[in-house]
C-alpha cells in the first residue's frame, strides 16, 4: 500500500493518460450536425483539456502529499530503486512537471479550438510525455533514464507536428526528431560505455566505481569514464538546449503550436535538468570530477556562459515574440546551469536550481499563455508589431503579459527574482564570482528584450492598416494565466514555504 502511495503521482498521471485516451476514443465527436468525421475526439478539446489538467493537478497534489508524508518513511519504495528513485528531489520536480503540464493543457484547451487544430490526441500525448518526464526525474538507473527520455521525447515530437497541414510544423517536428535522435544516439553510446567501464547500470553503482579509480586494485578505466561523461553531457545539454546544442529550439518552438512549445520550454527542460543533476551528482559526483579543476564544472560553466550570452544577444534581435521566448528559454537554461555548476560544492545549489525551474515554469507558461491570449483565429500574435497597442485595447492581457515578463526578467516581487537570487547566491557562496557576475550582466541584457515587449504593449500604436491583434476569449487560457500569476506572485512575495520544500529536495554530491 505504501508502495502504491509512494508511486501515486506517477500512477495517477499514467493511468489518467490511459483513461483519457479511452475517453477520447470512445466518446462522441462534438461537431455541428451534418459534418462527417471519423475522429472521435473532434470538437472535444475543451473537455479533454479539462480532464488532462485535472489529472495533472492530481499528480501535483499527490507529489506534495508524498513529500509531506516523507518518502524516507516509506521503506517499500526501495523495491523500485534504483530504477525509480522516489526522494524529495524527485517529488519536487514531479510537482513542477505536473504544474507545467497542467498549464500547457489548459492553454491547449483554449488554443487548439481557437486556431482550428482539432486534434484531441494532444492531451493523451501530453500526459504520456509527462509520465516520461516524471520518470526521467526519478531515474536512478541508465535503463530507466533512457526509456523515460524517449517516452518524453516521442510525445513531444508528435505534439510539435500536430498541425499536419502546416509545412512549418512538419519541418519543426522532423528537425527536432532528427537532432533529438542524433543526441539520443550519442548519449546512448555514452551510457553503453559507462556500463562497459563500470559494469553497473545504476547511477549509485557507477558513482562508487568512479570513486574507486586510483585506489589499489581498481580496474575501472578513467579514460572511458571521461569519454562517456562527454557523450552523456552532449545528450543532456541538447535536452536542456544549452548552446551550442540549442539550434533546434527556436525552429521547433516556432513551428509548434504554442501550447506544445510551452510544454517543451517548461516540462522537457525541467526534467532534463533533473536528470542532469542526478547523473552528475550521483554518477559523476567523485571529488575529482565534481571540482573546479578538470571535472564537469568548468565545462558546464562554459556552456552556461555561452548559453546566457549567445541567447541574450540573439534574442534581442528577434522580430518574432515566439522566437524571442525560445531564445529566452535558452538563456534561462544558462542561468540554471550556473546553479548546476555551483552544485559541485553546495547541496543548496540543487535546491536553488529546483526552485529556479519552478519559478521559470510558471513564468514561461504564463508568458506563452499571454501571447496566446493576445491573438485569435487568423490573427495569431507572433511579432512585436502584432502586440502594438494591446495595452490600451486589452489591458488585462497586457497586464498579465507584463507580470510574466517581469518575472522572466527577474524583477521583484516576482518568482523569477527569487529564482535568480538563489541561483546566483549559491554561485557566490561556492566562490563562483565570475560566473555569478556574468549571470547578472546577462540578466540585465535580458531585461532589454523583455521590456521591449512592454514598450510595444503600452507605448506603440499599430501602424495604420496593419492587421490588429484581437485577443481571444477563453476560460481555459484565463484560468491558466490566473493560476500562473498566483504562483508568480506567491513565489515572489512569500517564497518561504516553497524554498523550504526546495531545500528538502537537495541532492548531495558525495
Amino acid at each position, binding site marked *: 500500500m505504501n508502495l502504491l502511495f509512494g508511486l501515486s503521482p506517477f500512477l495517477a498521471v499514467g493511468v489518467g493518460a490511459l483513461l483519457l485516451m479511452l475517453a477520447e476514443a470512445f466518446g462522441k465527436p462534438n461537431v455541428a450536425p451534418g459534418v462527417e468525421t471519423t475522429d472521435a475526439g473532434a470538437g472535444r478539446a475543451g473537455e479533454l483539456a479539462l480532464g488532462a489538467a485535472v489529472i495533472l493537478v492530481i499528480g501535483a497534489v499527490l507529489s506534495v502529499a508524498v513529500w509531506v508524508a516523507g518518502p524516507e518513511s516509506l521503506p517499500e519504495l526501495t523495491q523500485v530503486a534504483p530504477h525509480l528513485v522516489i526522494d524529495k528531489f524527485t517529488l519536487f520536480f514531479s510537482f513542477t512537471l505536473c504544474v507545467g503540464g497542467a498549464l500547457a493543457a489548459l492553454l491547449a484547451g483554449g488554443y487548439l479550438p481557437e486556431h482550428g487544430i482539432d486534434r484531441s490526441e494532444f492531451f493523451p500525448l501530453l500526459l504520456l510525455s509527462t509520465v516520461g518526464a516524471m520518470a526521467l526525474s526519478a531515474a536512478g538507473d541508465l535503463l530507466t533514464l533512457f526509456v523515460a527520455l524517449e517516452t518524453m521525447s516521442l510525445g513531444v515530437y508528435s505534439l510539435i507536428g500536430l498541425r499536419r497541414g502546416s509545412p512549418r510544423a512538419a519541418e519543426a517536428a522532423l528537425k527536432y526528431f532528427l537532432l533529438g535522435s542524433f543526441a539520443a544516439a550519442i548519449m546512448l553510446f555514452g551510457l553503453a560505455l559507462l556500463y562497459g567501464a563500470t559494469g553497473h547500470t545504476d547511477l549509485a553503482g557507477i558513482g562508487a566505481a568512479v570513486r574507486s579509480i586510483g585506489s589499489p586494485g581498481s580496474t575501472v578505466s578513467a579514460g572511458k569514464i571521461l569519454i562517456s561523461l562527454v557523450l552523456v553531457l552532449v545528450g543532456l545539454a541538447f535536452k536542456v538546449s544549452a548552446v551550442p546544442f540549442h539550434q533546434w529550439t527556436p525552429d521547433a518552438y516556432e513551428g509548434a503550436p504554442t501550447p506544445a512549445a510551452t510544454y517543451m520550454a517548461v516540462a522537457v527542460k525541467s526534467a532534463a535538468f533533473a536528470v542532469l543533476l542526478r547523473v552528475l551528482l550521483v554518477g559523476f559526483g567523485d571529488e575529482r570530477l565534481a571540482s573546479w579543476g578538470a571535472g564537469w564544472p568548468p565545462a558546464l560553466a562554459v556552456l552556461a556562459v555561452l548559453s546566457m550570452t*549567445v541567447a541574450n544577444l540573439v534574442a534581442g534581435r528577434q522580430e518574432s515574440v515566439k522566437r524571442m521566448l525560445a531564445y529566452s528559454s535558452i538563456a534561462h537554461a544558462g542561468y540554471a546551469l550556473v546553479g548546476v555548476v555551483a552544485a559541485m560544492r553546495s547541496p543548496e545549489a540543487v535546491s536553488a536550481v529546483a526552485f529556479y525551474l519552478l519559478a521559470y515554469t510558471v513564468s514561461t507558461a504564463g508568458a506563452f499563455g499571454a501571447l496566446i491570449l493576445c491573438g485569435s483565429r487568423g490573427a495569431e500574435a507572433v511579432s512585436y508589431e502584432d502586440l502594438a497597442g494591446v495595452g490600451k485595447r486589452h489591458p488585462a492581457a497586457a497586464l498579465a503579459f507584463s507580470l510574466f515578463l517581469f518575472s522572466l526578467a527577474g524583477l521583484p516581487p516576482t518568482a523569477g527574482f527569487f529564482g535568480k537570487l538563489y541561483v546566483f547566491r549559491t554561485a557566490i557562496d561556492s566562490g563562483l564570482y565570475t560566473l555569478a557576475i556574468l549571470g547578472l550582466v546577462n540578466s540585465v541584457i535580458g531585461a532589454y528584450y523583455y521590456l521591449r515587449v512592454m514598450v510595444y504593449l503600452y507605448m506603440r500604436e499599430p501602424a495604420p492598416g496593419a492587421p490588429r491583434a484581437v485577443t481571444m476569449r477563453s476560460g481555459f487560457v484565463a484560468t491558466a494565466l490566473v493560476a500562473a500569476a498566483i504562483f508568480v506572485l506567491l513565489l515572489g512575495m512569500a517564497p518561504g514555504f516553497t524554498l523550504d520544500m526546495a531545500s528538502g529536495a537537495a541532492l548531495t554530491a558525495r
Partner: protein
Amino acid sequence: MNPLATVFPPNDFALLAVIVGLPLVGAFVNGVFGKRLGKEAVTLMALSSVGLSFLASVATFVALRGARAAEQAPRFVWQGWEWMRVSSRLDGPDVPIAFDLSVDPLSGTMILVITGVGFLIHLYSTKYMEADAGYHRFFAYLNLFVFSMLVLVLGDSLPVLFVGWEGVGLCSYLLIGFWFHEDANAAAGKKAFIANRVGDFGLLVAMGLLVYHCGALDWRGIDAAAHNLLVPKQVWPIGTHVPLASLLPDSAAAWLNAPRYATGATMVGLALLLGAAGKSAQIPLYVWLPDAMAGPTPVSALIHAATMVTAGVYLVCRLSGVFVLTPAAMFAVAFVGALTALFAATIALVQNDIKKVLAYSTVSQLGFMFLGAGVGAFSAGFFHVLTHAFFKACLFLGAGSVIHAMHARIHGTEASQDMRNMGGLRKFMPVTFVTFAAAWAAIVGFPLTSGFFSKDEILFKAFTSSPQAPLGGSMMVGGRSVELFTWPEWAPITLFVMGVAAATMTAFYMTRLIVGTFLGDFRGWTVVPGWKAAHGHGDDAHDEHAHDEHAHDEPGHGAAGREGPEPHESPWQMTLPLVVLGALAVVAGALNAHALFHSHLLDTWLEPVFQGVEKAIVVKENSKALELPLLVPGLLAFAAGVGGAWWAYVARGGEPMRALAERVPGLHQLVYEKWRIDELYEETFLGAVDALAEFAVWFDKWVVDGLLAKLTALLVAGGGAALRLAQTGRTHAYAALMVVGMAGLGWFFTAPHAQAKVEANHDEGRYVVSAAPGLGYRYRWATAEDGSWASDEFGAQAKVELSLEVGTSRTVKLAVENAFGRVEERTLLLERPRPDRSGPGGATTIEINRGADGRLEGQVAPRPIPSGAFPGPLGSALRVPPSFPVPGGGMPAPRGAAPGGPVPAPGVAAPSPGGAR
C-alpha cells in the same frame, strides 16, 4: 541601551493584522468597485473600515496597558511571513526580511492618532468632497493612506517600515495631485514625490549600513547589536589620498589628506536624518510641503499635518537606540529642527493664503519636534507629535471649513483661501470659530493648553539636556586615539534661544491668522461686486476680480455686494471633528504637564521604549529647579507674539506692519517669496541637474549614439550575421555545430589541466602547494632550488610543502599526467616578502587592512565575526573558496580573494609555456 531586550514570550497578536488589513480592504473595494457602488456604499465602506480599525486600535491600546499593569513587557508581535534573507557579508549571518508587525507604547499611541484622527477626517471629507466627481477615488486613496501609515508605524523592521514609508509617499503624491487637471497641482505632487525620493535614498543607505554593521533590520535586533555601530570608519579621504592634493602647498595637502573618521552610528544617523528630513519636511527638503497644500484640505489635515509628516520624528524616536550613540547626528537633528522651526516661522509671518500659513506653521512645528528628539528628549518630541496632531488637524479642518464657506461666494481656489478676502467669519460660522480659537490657543502656547505644555517641555529639555559622547569621548583607531564629537558648550543655550524666537513668531503669525480670518468685518463682499446668481459669471470673471487688490473698502459696492449667499456654517459631519479635535487640543496637555502639575502620564507610558536611551543623555544638575523658571521665556514668547500681533492687526488695523513692509520693501518681498529658496534650488540643484541632463543628451547623441551605438551595432550586426550563418535552418548544419560542441567538450576532458593553488603563510614562511584533482591524474614535482624533478615517475602526491627564508623566492614546477597519458607542466613562483612589505615585485599589495597582530583594530565590543570574514575598509568580506585558477583557455575563474589567515601569494602562477609533450 536596549529598551526592548527584556524577554517577551513569543506572541501572535493577530489584531495588528486586522488593524492594518481593514483599511486595505476599504481601499481595494472603493478603488475597484467604487464607481459601481454609489456614494453611500463608498462612504460606508471608507468610514467603517477606518472606524473598525480605530476600535481595534483602542483594544490593542487597552491590552498594552493591561500588559503594562501586569508588569509584563508591553510589546505584541504578529509574525506574518518571511520574504527573504539577505546576508550582511558574504558569509555573515543571514538577515531575515520578514513581514512582521509589532506594537509597543510608542506605536500603540501612534495608531490611536492615525485611526482616530483618520476617522474624524474621513467623516469630515464625506461632506467636504461631497460634490467631487472623484469621490470614490478620493476615499480609496485615503484608505490606502491609512493602511500605509499603519504599516509604517506597526512594521517590526525597517524594510516593512519602508513599505509603509513608500506607500504614504505614493498616497501623498496621488492626493496632492488629486485635482490633476490643473498643472500646478500635478507639479506639486511631483515635487513632493521627488523631494521624498531624495530622503528615501538616505533611508536605503541607512538600511544597508545597518545590515552591514548590526546584521539586523528589526527593531530588537538593531537595538541588541547597536554597539557594533561604534566601529570607526575612515570616511576621508576616499581611497588613500585626495586626488590632485599634491598640487597644493604641503600644509594644505596634509590637511586635506589627513584621515578622518566617523563611527558607523554617525553614518547611519545622518542617513536616517536625510530620510526623516524628506518625509518630515525639514531643511533642506522642506520645500515640497507648502506646495502640497494643492491637495484637498482634509488631505492637508490628515497627511500633511497630523500623520505622515510626523513619520520622520517617529523614525528618530524608533531608532533612538542608534541615535544616542552618535552625538554628531543628534547635533545635526537638533540644529536642523531648530533652524527649520525658525526659518519656516519667518515665512509664515507674511503669507496671505490661509493654508500656506498653516503649511509653514506645520514645517515650523515639525522643527520643534526634531529639536526635542535631537537633544535626546524623545518623549517630549513625541508629545509634541501628539498635541500637534490634534491642534494642527483642527486648524486645517477649520481652514477647510472656512474655505468651504467662502466657496459659497468665491469660486477661485486662490481667492477663497486668501485671508485678505475673509474677516468677520466669527458671525457666520460660530462653531468653526470656537474650535479654531481653541486650536489657536494650543499652538500659540496659551497657558494650560496642550501646545503650551508640549512646546514648553521641548524648550526646557533643549536648555537642560544634551547627548553625551559614548565610550568616554574617544576611541582607538589604528593605535591612535581619536576624539569623538561632543556637544559644544554653547549648543543648549543657542537651541533654546532659537526655539523661543520661533515660538514668539508662531504666536504672532497665528494671531494674525485668526484675526484676519474671524475678527473684524467680512471683506469678501467686495471680492465679487455685483455678484447676483451663482451661474451668472464664468469662473474666469471671478478670478479676475479675486486677483485684484481689494484691501480697502469700496463703499459703492457695499450694499450691492451683500446680495447672494452668505458664508455659512458647515454641516455636522464637518463640525463634529472640529469639536472633538478642538477639545483635545485644549486638554491633551494634561498627559504630560510636568512643570505645573507633575503629570507624567505619557512619559511613564513611553518609558519602556526610551528607558535605555535616556541614560545616554546628560541632564544639567539643577534641572528640576529650572523647570519653573524656564516657563517664563515660553510665556513671554506667547505674550509678546500674541500681544504684538494684537497691537499690530487689531489695535492699529495692520498699519504698523504695512509701514514696516514699506520701510524694508526688499526684505518683505524676500520673506513673502519664501526667501526664494525654491528659486535657489531651481538655479542650483535643478540647474545642475539640467546641465547634467544636457550633458547626458550631448553624450547620448554623440558618444552613445554616434560612437558606441554605431560600434556596437557594427559588432552586433557582425555577430548577428555570424550567428545567422549558424542558424541556417538546415538540420545538418545544426548537427555539425553539435559535433563541434562535442569536440570541444572532448578536448577539455582529454587534455590535462595542471593547476595548483598556493596557501601562503608569509609570517612563518610556510607554503603549501596543492594540485587540482582530476580523474586519473598523476603528478610529479620539482621543488628543489636547481629545478630538478623529485622523481622520474609520476605519482599520487598532489601536495607539496616547503618553507622559504625572508626575502627569497623559489620556483616550483608541477607536471600532470592524465588518464590518456598526456602531460602538462606548470611553473609557480613563490615569494616570501620582507616584513616591511617592500619585498620584491610588490608582492603584498593586496594585503588587507589589518593590524600587525592580524586583528582588526579600533573596534569596540565587536560582534563575533564569523571565521574567515573580515570587515575590510570597503566593507569587503573575504574568504577563500576551495577553488583553483583556471587554464589559459578562457574558462571563467572563481577568484577567491584574500582570507583572514593564509593569503594566496600574489606573485604566483605565471603560466609556463610547457605543455603537452
